[in-house]
């Protein structure tokens, strides 16, 4: 392949959320260019929330992303609550954790079933699978619907939640509804097993590639951290969420409307694989079994295994949701007034909210004046933290696959991008492959 010329340009990588491009140019077997860029239209959320009131920020910032709107709302509420010194009840905390599980389930199932599976089955989308593999597609749809029902039950709806407000919830579900949900979650385990077996039969199609990198995720000694925890790095140890800037170090890359991030290396990775790697010991029993069945053990440096880590987290979220509902039942669900509006004393302050959302660790950081008006905001989105890692993976992977056909190279690079499940609308508050020949 010494004399290989290759010019690949994938404009707007498909089956990812948002727009990203891949450019590859190889001259006489030498890689001249291997680039990942984000042309998504910028949206300027940090500037848009300046001047807005503390009780609107979660509503506005949930619109950063349709898929992780619950996660954005929760990170936003945590930041506002930290800034204004608001605490929430143990019951609300559990309900918020359920909300996050609902979103992680929905997002992971969508990614695994609709976006990753077609690559492994050798088709362009899930649509032809509806004719060739209807039972499997129906199983995926059933799980996806359950995840959405769960979000609707806890948050009022699946996208851009309404019930999540500063200080708690405007409305909460009834215990009997939660018990009904628990029943469905228990029943879903057999569907998840079906999906896991399908992926197991296709796992050989995931490229065997690895590149050592740093992983960053929240960690918590008491549970598999999603809603609460401190920042942990696989390279350097841990720190409270308010010190996030020392980890993220965002920088502007002229080719991308999304910002990039790095910590102690040239790049780091966030998301399901980072979480499983860092918090492996806290996985629930069945989640751990699933990880072992795929030989997913820490530290796993194969980014393609992020999809499998998501599958592990699907099991984790189902088991943990059952546990949370059990605890809510044991404690007895406390009722709250209709149209609940917690009393909040507004004061000046600054606060950081960190939450693990489907694609990784998310930070919102707000400063409020004495009237509760936002004067400064910063949102650091998981996909932005992954951009540098994606590009470095592409650069490491390309020489290993140069002997393949252009079509296969393009597909493998796209699969790499998809494995990260990038959420580009989010990250610009970015994916597309351009081969240059």
């Amino acid at each position, binding site marked *: 392949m010494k004399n290989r010329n290759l010019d690949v340009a994938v404009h707007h990588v498909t089956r990812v959320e948002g727009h990203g491009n891949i450019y590859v140019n190889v001259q006489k077997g030498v890689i001249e260019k291997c680039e990942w860029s984000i042309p998504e239209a910028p949206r300027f959320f940090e500037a848009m929330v300046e001047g807005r009131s503390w009780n609107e920020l979660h509503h506005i910032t949930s619109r950063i992303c349709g898929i992780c709107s619950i996660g954005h709302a929760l990170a936003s509420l945590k930041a506002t609550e930290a800034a204004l010194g608001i605490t929430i009840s143990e019951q609300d905390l559990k309900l918020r954790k359920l909300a996050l599980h609902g979103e992680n389930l929905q997002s992971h199932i969508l990614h695994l079933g609709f976006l990753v599976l077609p690559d492994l089955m050798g088709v*362009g989308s899930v649509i032809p699978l509806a004719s060739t593999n209807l039972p499997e597609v129906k199983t995926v749809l059933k799980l996806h619907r359950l995840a959405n029902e769960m979000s609707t039950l806890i948050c009022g709806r699946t996208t851009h939640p309404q019930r999540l407000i500063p200080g708690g919830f405007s409305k909460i579900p009834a215990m009997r509804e939660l018990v009904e949900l628990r029943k469905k979650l228990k029943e879903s385990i057999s569907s998840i097993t079906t999906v896991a077996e399908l992926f197991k039969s296709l796992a050989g199609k995931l490229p065997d590639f690895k590149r050592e990198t740093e992983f960053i995720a929240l960690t918590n000694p008491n549970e598999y951290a999603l809603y609460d925890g401190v920042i942990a790095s696989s390279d350097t140890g841990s720190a409270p969420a308010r010190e996030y800037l020392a980890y993220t170090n965002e920088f502007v890359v002229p080719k991308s409307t999304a910002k990039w991030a790095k910590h102690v290396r040239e790049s780091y990775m966030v998301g399901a694989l980072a979480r499983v790697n860092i918090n492996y010991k806290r996985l629930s029993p069945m989640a751990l079994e699933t990880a072992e069945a795929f030989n997913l053990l820490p530290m796993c440096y194969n980014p393609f295994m992020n999809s499998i880590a998501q599958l592990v987290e699907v099991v984790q979220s189902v088991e943990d949701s059952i546990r949370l509902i059990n605890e809510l039942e044991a404690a007895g669900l406390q009722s709250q007034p209709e149209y609940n509006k917690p009393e909040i004393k507004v004061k000046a302050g600054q606060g950081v909210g960190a939450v693990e959302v489907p694609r990784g660790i998310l930070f919102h950081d707000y400063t409020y004046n004495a009237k509760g008006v936002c004067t400064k905001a910063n949102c650091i989105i998981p996909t932005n933290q992954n951009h540098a890692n994606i590009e470095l993976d592409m650069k490491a992977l390309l020489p290993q696959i140069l002997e393949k056909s252009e079509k296969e190279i393009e597909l493998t690079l796209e699969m790499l991008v998809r494995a990260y499940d990038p959420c580009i609308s989010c990250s610009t508050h970015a994916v597309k492959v351009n081969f240059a020949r």
Partner: protein
Amino acid sequence: MKPKVAFFDFAGCEGDQLQIANLEEDLLTLLGQIEVVSFREVMKEHADNYDIAFVEGSCTRLQDEDRLKQIRKNAKVVVAIGSCAAIGGINSLRNYKDLEGVKKTVYGENAKLFDSYAARPIDAIIPVDAYVYGCPIDREDFLHVVKSLLLGKKPETITYPVCVECKKNENICAFERGQFCVGPVTRAGCDSCCVNEGTICWGCRGFVDNPNENSHKEVLIKYGLTVDDAIGKFKLYFGWQEAKR
């Protein structure tokens, strides 16, 4: 022959296309009636011959106008889905700010690298045949519009405010609860979903045709609220529409 359908997105959160994925089993039924030829978010294939184009997101920069015009040229019917495409949506919050300042806030000294202008709905650039309002769109509403189009009918637009649906749902009025709500001037069709969940109407479906502002002002005075309160809330979704009035 099944009509060919394409989906496109501009500046937005893709939450509306997600509602289409969220149709679950209904999606399979829908796929029996239409042929999807382009949907970047879920499929690799792409074709430029389509009958119906569904467009999500606002237009926020000059370079996106050509893409919109091409979509208009290719499609027989263009449908704006979601607040950003239909009315400008939450993106138009920035229209109240000095844009150079906004770019600087986010990108610092690199602001000049990124082209951007006031966020606008797609009908500011191209003619639009039908609208699915909401942030996000309602799945039933979307199916209703699709069914109308498949039958060759123009989908009807609701011309009364959210209060009508809210009363029917027997909610306690947000003003009675001491909160500010833009339901009185916002286009209905959402079944007052946010108030049903214990909050307020934020105005995501945009101004109703001929909003009764005088009556709305009376409500504000009755509850001791100011026009500033109103303007503040209007800014959330009505930015482009306000500027046009």
